[in-house]
C-alpha cells in the first residue's frame, strides 16, 4: 500500500506541472492587467510596480522564475493585497474552507446514510417517499436560494443564529447546513439504491436465515457493502465542497479560499490565482488517493 501511495504521489507531479502551465498561460491571456484601474498610474510608478513583480521580464522567464519559486515553496507576493504573500493568504483561507467543507461533509454523510438506510428498509412506504421527497427538494433548491431563506428565518426573524461572519463556531452552523443540503440528498439516494440491491443479495438472505438480528444484518453485513458507491462519490464531492463553496462563502461572509479565488481572477492577481489552482490541484489528488485507499479497506477484494 505504501509503494502504491508513493507511486501515485510521483504521478501527481506531471499532472500538477501541466495544471500550473495551463493556468499560467490562461491567466496571462486574459485581457487587462493587475494594475489597470480607473485611475491612471504615473509612468514611473507603474514601471516600479512592474519591476517589483518582475512583469517587465520576458514571459518565459517569468514562467521559469515562478516554477523555481514554487519548487521552493514560494508562491510569490499577491498583487491585490500587496502587504501579504500568497502563502499567507492560502494559510489564512484554507482552515476556514476546510472547517466549512469538512463539517458539511460529515453532516452530509451521517444524515445522508441514515436517511438512505431508513428509506431502503422501508422501501415503497410512506417513510421512503417522504425521505426521497426531501432528497429531491435538497437537490433542486440551489444554495443561493436556500442560504438567504435560512438567514431570513433563523437569523433575521427568529434571531437564533448569526447571519454571517466567521468569529464563533455558531457562525458556521447555517453555512454548513446550506452546503450539506445537496450532499445529504445525493448521499441518501445513493445509499438507498445500493442498500436495496444489497438487501436482495443471497449473503443477506443467508445471514437472516441464520437468525441474526435485523441490526446485525443491516449494520455489519449490508451497510459496508452498500457504502462502496457512496465512498467513490465522497472523494470528488469533498474536493468539490471544499473548493466549490464560493457562493456559500460569499453569502455568509466567510473568509475562505473561494473568496480569494474568484476575486483574484477578477482582479488579475496572477500569483494568487496560480497559487490557489496549484493548492486545489494537490488537494484533489490527495483526496482521490485517500478514497482509493479507503476502497481497499472497505472491500477485501481490492488489493494494491
Amino acid at each position: 500500500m505504501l509503494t502504491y501511495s508513493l507511486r501515485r504521489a510521483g504521478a501527481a507531479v506531471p499532472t500538477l506541472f501541466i495544471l500550473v502551465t495551463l493556468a499560467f498561460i490562461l491567466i496571462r491571456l486574459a485581457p487587462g492587467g493587475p494594475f489597470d484601474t480607473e485611475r491612471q498610474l504615473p509612468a514611473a510608478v507603474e514601471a516600479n510596480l512592474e519591476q517589483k513583480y518582475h512583469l517587465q521580464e520576458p514571459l518565459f522567464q517569468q514562467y521559469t522564475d515562478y516554477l523555481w519559486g514554487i519548487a521552493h515553496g514560494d508562491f510569490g507576493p499577491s498583487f491585490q493585497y500587496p502587504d501579504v504573500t500568497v502563502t499567507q493568504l492560502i494559510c489564512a483561507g484554507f482552515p476556514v474552507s476546510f472547517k466549512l467543507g469538512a463539517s458539511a461533509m460529515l453532516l452530509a454523510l451521517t444524515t445522508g446514510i441514515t436517511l438512505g438506510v431508513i428509506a431502503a428498509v422501508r422501501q415503497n412506504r410512506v417513510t421512503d417517499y417522504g425521505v426521497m421527497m426531501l432528497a429531491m427538494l435538497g437537490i433542486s433548491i440551489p444554495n443561493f436560494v436556500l442560504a438567504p431563506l435560512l438567514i431570513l428565518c433563523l437569523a433575521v426573524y427568529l434571531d437564533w443564529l448569526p447571519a454571517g461572519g466567521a468569529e464563533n463556531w455558531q457562525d458556521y452552523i447555517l453555512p454548513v447546513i446550506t452546503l450539506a443540503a445537496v450532499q445529504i440528498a445525493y448521499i441518501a439516494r445513493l445509499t438507498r439504491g445500493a442498500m436495496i440491491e444489497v438487501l436482495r443479495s443471497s449473503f443477506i438472505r443467508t445471514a437472516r436465515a441464520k437468525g441474526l438480528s435485523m441490526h446485525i444484518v443491516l449494520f455489519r453485513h449490508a451497510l459496508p457493502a452498500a457504502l462502496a458507491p457512496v465512498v467513490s462519490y465522497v472523494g470528488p464531492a469533498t474536493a468539490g465542497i471544499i473548493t466549490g463553496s464560493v457562493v456559500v462563502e460569499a453569502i455568509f461572509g466567510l473568509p475562505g479560499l473561494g473568496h480569494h479565488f474568484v476575486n483574484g481572477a477578477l482582479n488579475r492577481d496572477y500569483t494568487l490565482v496560480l497559487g490557489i489552482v496549484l493548492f486545489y490541484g494537490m488537494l484533489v489528488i490527495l483526496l482521490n488517493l485517500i478514497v482509493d485507499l479507503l476502497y481497499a479497506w472497505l472491500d477485501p477484494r481490492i488489493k494494491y
Partner: protein
Amino acid sequence: MANYKWIITLTVFATTALSMGCDLSTDTTNGPEITAAGEIVIRKGNGTEPQTLDPHRAQGVPEANILRDLYEGLISEAPSGKLVPGVAERWEISADGKAYTFHLRGNARWSNGAPVTAEDFVYSLRRSVDPITGSSYAAILSPIKNASAIIRGQKAPESLGVKAIGAHTIKIQLQAPTPYFLGLLTHTSTYPVYRPAVEKYGTTFTQPGNNVSNGAYRLTEWVIASHVTLRRNPYYWNNIKTRIDIVKYYGINDSEAEMRRYRAGELDWTASVPLGQLEWVQAHLPEEYRAAPYLGTYYYGLNLTRPPFKGNRAIREALSLAIDRKLLVEKVIRGGEIAAYGWVPPGVRNYTGQSFAYADWPRRRQIQVARRLYHQAGYSRSHPLSVEIRYNTSEDHQKIGTVIASMWKAVLGVKTTLINEEWKVFLQNVQARRATQVYRASWIGDYNDAYTFAELMHSRFGLNGAGYANPVYDHLLDQATTEVGKSQRRALLERAERMLLRDHPLIPIYFYVSKHLLKPYIEGYQDNIMDHHYTKDLRVRLRTGRHNDTPD
C-alpha cells in the same frame, strides 16, 4: 391513506408557520455590542476588503474609511465635512497663496507614545510622491513644488517643497496657489506614517503588531476577507473625546448579504443599501436610512476619436437630449439620485454647477430639438444610427443601458447594441479608444473642488476615455491652476464646464447619492458630500437603565 393526510397536514402547517414567522417585524432597536470589559463596539459594513492599509498606496473608499480612523493628517474634517485643525493646530498662508506654514500641536502622539513631529510629515509626504512607493494617488499631490517632477522620476524625493522648521513647524511650498490645498490635506495620501516601523518592517508595517498610527484608533486585528478591528489609541491628543472604544470594519462585497447582517443585528452601519431593497427600506426602516448627495457623476462617455462621434457634435447633443433623466432617476433607479444636466455635482465648495442650455426645457421641446439635430447629423428613420453601449457587467448598468437604448429608439429611432464586459477588459477597451463608441463610466471626486472633475477631460489627463482635446478648454484649466484670485479661478472653471457641456464629449446621467443604514442608537452622524465619517465623532445611546459596565 391516513398517512398521506398526515404528510399533507404537516406540510401545510410547516409552510404557514414559516411564512407567518417571516412576517414578524424585526426588533432592530437593540443596543450596541458591549464587551465583557464594558467597551463599546461599533460594527461597520465597509464594502470590499481593504487591499492595503498603507495610506500612501491605498486606492479605494473602504481603505480610506479605515485609514481616517487610524491616522490624522495636518487637517481634519468635522462631521459636517467642514475643515478643522488636525495635527496642525493653526496655520498661515502667504499672500501669494503659495506657501503654507503649519504649526503642529505639541501633544500629538503616535500610538506607541512617541511624539508626532514635523519631520514625520516631511518623511511621509516625500514617501507618498516617491515612485518607489508605488502610489496611484501620487498625482493629486502635484500642487506641491517639485512633486510632478518627482512622480515622473526626474527629481529626487528630497527636492519636494516641504520643510521642517524645528520639531513642530512645517512649511509647504506650492507650485501655484491652490485654493483647495487645505482640503487635499485630509486625503489619505498626505497622512503621516511612522518612519521607524516602515523602515523596520517594509510593506508589512501595515500589519497588526507592526503598525503604529497617530489617529484616534490603532490597528489590533486584520482577518483578510473578514474584518479589521481598531481600538482606541490612548495616546491620541483628543482621546478624552472618543466615545467608541472598538471599531470593526467588515468587508462584505454583497450589499444584500450586508443588509441581512444589519437586520440580524450583527452590523450597526452599512456601506450601502441594495437598489432592489430601497422601497422596503424606505417603508420599514425610514429612521435608519440615510441618503445624502455624494461627490460623483454617473455618465456615458462618447469616443470622439472614432465615428460616429468624431467631428459630429449634433449627434452627440441629440443623444443627450433624447435621454429623459428625470424619468430614469424617478422610475428606474429610484434611489434618490439627482438627474444630471451638468458635469460637476452640486454642493462643491466655491463653485456653481453649470447646466446644459436645455436642462429646463419642457420635454416636448427637448425631443423636437433632438430630432432636428439627428437629421442635421445625417440620420433619419430610414437611415438610423447604429451604436454600441459598452458597460462593465452589472445588473444596474444593464438596466440603465436598456432604458436609455429604448429612449434613443423611441425619440430618434437609434439602433443600440448593449455590450457588457468584465471590469478589467472594459477598462482596457475604454483607455485604448479603439473599440468603444458609448461607454458607461462614473467619476468620484478626490477632494471637494471642481478641479477634480474638470481635469478628467483635460487632453493630457491619462484617463480621458472620450479623447476630448480642446486647446481652449485645456488653457482655461491651466489658467485656473495658476490663478490667485478665488473668484477669477471660479469663473475660469465655470467657463470651462460650460464649454465642456456645449461640446458634449460625455453625457452626464445622474449625480450620486451616498446611502447608509444606521442603527437608531448611533449619534453624532451628519451627512456630508464627501461621505467621510470619523468614528471618533460618533457616540452610542445606551438602553435606559443600563450602565456602560454591564456585559451584553
